[in-house]
Structures are given as C-alpha cells and as structure tokens.
C-alpha cells in the first residue's frame, strides 16, 4: 500500500504492507534510528514518537494508520541544535546508556508543551510509561523540572 506521511517535516511516500508496524517502518524505511525497539507491546516507551504533537507508542501503530499524519522523532526536534530540554539532560547527566532517552525526551516535550511548569508529580506521571534501566529516574526528573522552571532561562517548555 502507498503511504503518504510527514516525518520530521519531510513528506514521505512509502510502500508498506498492512501488517507493517510504524516502529519498523520508521527505522527501516525512513531511517530514524532514535526510535528504539524495546518491549514491542506498549509497556516500555522506548518507541515513543510524536504524532500530531502527541506521544504514541509506534510499536502499537500500524504504518498504514499514519497516513496523512505528522510524525516527529528526536531527530526532528534537534535539527536546529538541541532543545533546551535536551541541553538540560546533558548538563544534569540524566542518561547513562541512553536507550530510553529518545522516548523520555519526547514524553517530556509533550508534557512541557501542555504544562510548562509541571510539578514533580506531573513529571512522574508523564514519564510513568517510559522505563529506564540505568539512572533510577532521579536525574531525569530533575532535568524535566529544571526545563519547567522559569529560572532555567529563556525558551523553556517551548517546542522548536
């Protein structure tokens, strides 16, 4: 089947089968390898992408369902340099192996978009479905909270 979809601002025409899962098509056909294959059943969040601005688990979406929608992966929010949030993750050392990072960055991006000054509880809730096996979450939460705080500088909570 023909699939027309916008990924990170570029229009793609892809040839996919109905049984192809969006996660695999993004990685194999489009080449956005930031989107990670984890549990493939919706539990870990490593395959998180933004679809029309909202996080979805790309392992639970058929590629054909993306027809006409706009997809953003971590590559897409980093074209013009790292976002404020990404810089904070770096500064606070919020990742170790980094496998969870793309999903967490996108989940936090969605949170800050809807709630520019989240509480710790809000951050925990927003990231509850993104598993991290390395950090113990504390530095991640700290980085997202810092991005939400006004004193963290201009641009916090804005999407690029």
């Amino acid at each position, binding site marked *: 089947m023909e699939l027309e979809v916008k990924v990170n601002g570029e229009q793609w025409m892809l040839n996919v089968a*109905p049984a192809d899962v969006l996660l695999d098509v993004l990685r194999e056909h489009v080449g956005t390898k930031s989107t990670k294959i984890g549990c493939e059943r919706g539990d870990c969040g490593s395959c998180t992408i933004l679809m029309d601005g909202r996080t979805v688990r790309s392992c*639970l979406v058929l590629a054909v369902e993306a027809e006409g929608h706009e997809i953003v992966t971590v590559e897409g929010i980093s074209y013009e340099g790292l976002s404020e949030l990404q810089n904070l993750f770096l500064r606070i050392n919020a990742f170790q192996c980094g496998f969870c990072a793309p999903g967490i960055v996108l989940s936090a991006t969605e949170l800050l978009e809807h709630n520019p000054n989240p509480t710790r509880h809000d951050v925990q809730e927003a990231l*509850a479905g993104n598993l991290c096996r390395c950090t113990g979450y504390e530095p991640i939460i700290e980085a997202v909270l810092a991005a939400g705080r006004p004193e963290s500088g201009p641009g916090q909570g804005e999407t690029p």
Partner: protein
Amino acid sequence: MIAKEFEYRRPATLGEATHLLADHPGSVRVLAGGTDLVAWLRDDAVAPDLVVDIKDIPELRDIRLDGQTLHVGSLVTFTDLIESDLVHDHAPLLVEMAETVASPGIRNRATMVGNICSAVPSCDAGPVLLAYNTTVHVTGPNGSRSIDINDWFTGLRETARTEDEVVTHLAIEVPKHGGVYVKLMRYAGEDLAQAAVGIVVYPNLDYRVAFGALAPTPIRSTAIEAELQGKELDDALINRVVEMVPDEISPITDMRATAEYRTHITGVMLRRGLVAAVERLEGKGPEYGTRLI
C-alpha cells in the same frame, strides 16, 4: 513484526464499515486506537484476514451532553476524556478512571469504547461504566440497537457485540451523583489493575457498586447495592457490606497478587470508596483523582 498478513481498510462511513465487517465473517477485526489489537496481532492471539480501521468516521469522535446523558463516541480516547471540560463538569469519575489507564502514550491512542470491547478482566472502563447507567449503541448492516452495559460483558474478552457491528457511542446517565474509582496497582504509574472498585451514589442513596480484575469480566454486585440501598453510611453498614465481598467476587492468583490478598484489599477499597463517593456527592471529600490506596 506481525507474521500474519491481512487486508486493511479505512472506510469513511459507518455503512461501509458494517458491510465490510459483514462480508468477512469469522476473520475480521475492528481497529480504533490499536493499543490492544496491534499487540494481539503481534502475539498471533488474533489472526484476521481483514482489519477495518474506523478512525475516518467522523461522527464517532463526539463527546456531547444531551440533557443528563453524556454521549461518548467510540473514537474518544482516554486523553480526550481527561481534556474535556464537559466530562470534567458532568462525569469527573470518568476522568479519575482515565488518569489511571497505562501511560500518556497509550491514553493518547486508546479509546474507552475499545477498552470495553477488548473486555479484559482488568479493563478500567468496565467497573465505572457498570456503576453508571450506561447504554452501548451499536450499528450493524441491518440497523442499530442498544445494549445495556449490564448485558455487555458476556465472558473473558467477550461482549454482546456481534462481529458485523460497530459500537458508535456510549450513552451514560449523569444526573447529580458522587463517584469513585479505586484501583490497586503495584506502583503509581503504568500498571494493570490488580483489583478495582467503581462506585456511583445518587442523592436518593441509590448506590451502584462494581468490581474490576476480580472475576472473568467486570461485574456489578447487586447484593451489596441492595444492602446499601436507601441507607446513610455508618460503620456497621460498611462492615456488613465489606463482609459480603468474598461472596461477590472470584479473584484469581497470578503474578500480580494472590486471590486472598485481592479479596482482603477489595474490602479496604470498598470501605474507603464508599466514604469518598458519599462525601463527593455532598460536594466534599477527596478531589477526583486523589489516590485512595
């Protein structure tokens, strides 16, 4: 990867959808949010020849209030419920329930109707919709019919919907009421319910009590409701209905919890839930969304 090949159609009208369903008896699946269906396809738990995606049928997206009846279309996601002012104002219990469903990435996609169509024992919408007066509206090739929520869950992952029918919407009665959804999870955040209690109480002290994850389907306890009927809550009454819990549920032991623990904790949840629901009816009590366990 999904091993089984299938055909995919995305009709723009309900009529087209029901005809597609009717033409493929025994091997067709309806796709809405896909958070269950895609996982089941991957697991080979289902292997349809045709998947009918209903997301292009605009009238299934409605959330609307008609007098004291809230209509929730079959494409309304849990996030839509959480973000709807109408739902906040008239059925905050739906918001309280929706906020406990998995994670934002799932809630952005999963629909409340899909949740009761998948009909797993722990489905969060089940106990809450059972506690309300809810009617499920379906349309098939021969027209529409409505199904009382009490007749909806017919078995493990089974419902009263026939294969050629599409659920169009739910009609939920929302006169003045207090409600509560108490869900036991292993940790705050994403998890399935180990036990869940949904309660609605009306000003005339008509109580509705339903349970999730405690039987093969979500269930109502008409025995507990009858005991409570018309009475003000007091300790003796609460103790009486808590004692009835073991006879009303049939929990299993699995990796999440033992049957004994589930039974015990359900009593605790019922006790706290009843108090909160009545307080909320009176405009007091813990805000909706407050965790009681």
